[in-house]
């Protein structure tokens, strides 16, 4: 069971893109004048956060599609996307923490963005635990579909609820709060590197998702074969 040709090509190009983006981050992008080299974590930090949010949005959409159509295919996308999303959200939080230590002088602060990211991470870990706790596969898919919807809806609320307190997280894209600590302006080279990282991570997400769905499909085929073997 080899992956098909297009998946192999995609995997190899993703590898090249990651190498190229690493080169850009460390050699092409200039050193930030105040924060120094630690600022370079920013490129993958934002990209990982973006992929986390994208993965959970995809989960929401395919969860609804599963409940409406009852097609197992959508559920396979949902579980695959959640797993990838949790990994990237973990990367996002960890890299942010590494950056915060020298810049904010603390590993952690209960800022709206940080808290929202953590609650989001917990929601989808709960999603994975829910699936694990259910034995009947059909019920597992239905319940996961409902939780995939409920979880996504509560994320923006969490952000709003914590927004009642002031944020110190910098906003690089869009309107910025002058009180944010660690704020900086991007040069052209930085901007190129930044968008290239975003692009790389989006491609990386697609590749991983494809592989993961393929594994899910193989696993269900194995399960069918096994049950046939038992019945014969």
């Amino acid at each position, binding site marked *: 069971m080899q992956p098909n040709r297009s998946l192999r090509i995609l995997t190899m190009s993703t590898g090249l893109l990651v190498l190229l983006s690493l080169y850009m981050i460390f050699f092409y992008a200039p050193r930030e004048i105040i924060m120094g080299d630690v600022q370079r974590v920013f490129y993958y930090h934002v990209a990982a956060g973006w992929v986390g949010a994208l993965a959970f949005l995809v989960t929401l959409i395919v969860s609804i599609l599963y409940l409406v159509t009852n097609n197992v295919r959508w559920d396979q996308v949902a579980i695959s996307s959640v797993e990838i999303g949790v990994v990237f959200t973990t990367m996002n939080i960890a890299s942010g923490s590494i950056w915060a230590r020298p810049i904010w002088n603390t590993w952690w602060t209960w800022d709206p963005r940080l808290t929202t990211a953590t609650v989001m991470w917990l929601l989808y870990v709960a999603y994975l635990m829910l699936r694990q706790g259910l034995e009947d596969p059909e019920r597992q898919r239905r319940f996961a579909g409902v939780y995939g919807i*409920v979880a996504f809806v*509560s994320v923006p609320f969490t952000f709003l609820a914590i927004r*009642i307190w002031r944020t110190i997280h910098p906003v690089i894209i869009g309107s910025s709060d002058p009180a944010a600590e660690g704020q900086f302006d991007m040069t052209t080279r930085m901007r190129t590197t930044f968008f290239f990282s975003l692009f790389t991570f989006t491609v990386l997400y697609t590749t991983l998702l494809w592989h993961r769905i393929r594994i899910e499909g193989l696993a269900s085929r194995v399960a069918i074969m096994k049950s046939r073997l038992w019945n014969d």
Partner: protein
Amino acid sequence: MLDPTEHQLPKANFWRAVGTIAWKDLTAELRNKEIVSAMFIFSLLVILIFNFSLELDKSARENVAAGVLWVTFIFAATLGLNRTFAAEKDRGSLDGLLLAPIDRSALFFGKLLSTFVFILIVEIIVVPVFSVLYSISMFNPMFLLVLLLGTLGYTVVGTLLAAMAVHTRAREVMLPILLFPVAVPVVMAAVRASADILAGAKWGRVAGPINLVVVYDIILFAIAIMTFDYLIEE
């Protein structure tokens, strides 16, 4: 797939079914007083533990009162929510309820109503006790409104997730794991509003958090109604 037209009944029947289910739970509770008394004693224990673990003096007590009260209710309500469907499942009466010729969402509303009443009863007893123990006056209509709205939102999403958790392997453990992260916004906004009200803030200051609680209540309510059918066995 469920066919929604299959069980379609006139409106009056729908609300009667809701009332019957809720009344059944309330009667059962009146006989054994299991859930309400457990929640009440548990609440007192949580308040006691907070008092010792935070070593509260007078000014500290005023600062943390809203938070302590909400955490107490969240924990106690989780106990009650766990029982809503678990009791039915253990007695095998959940199948009986599903066989009844009523709309599935009537089952949700009935369960929601009875659980909400149980939690409210506990709150009605605990709030005066709490205000004596922490010597803070809590008989403020705005505070009671926030308490009502926050509890409603928590119970709505809690009832939905309890219907899920009851089928999992470690159901008592699973409910808080599923529920707490989803309930973070309603709890945070309610704590914020309660703390401001107890500190004597005017409507202008607390309107934001209260609006958030109301919007959360409405949206989670809508989602619960739309998705509850999928949580019930066909």
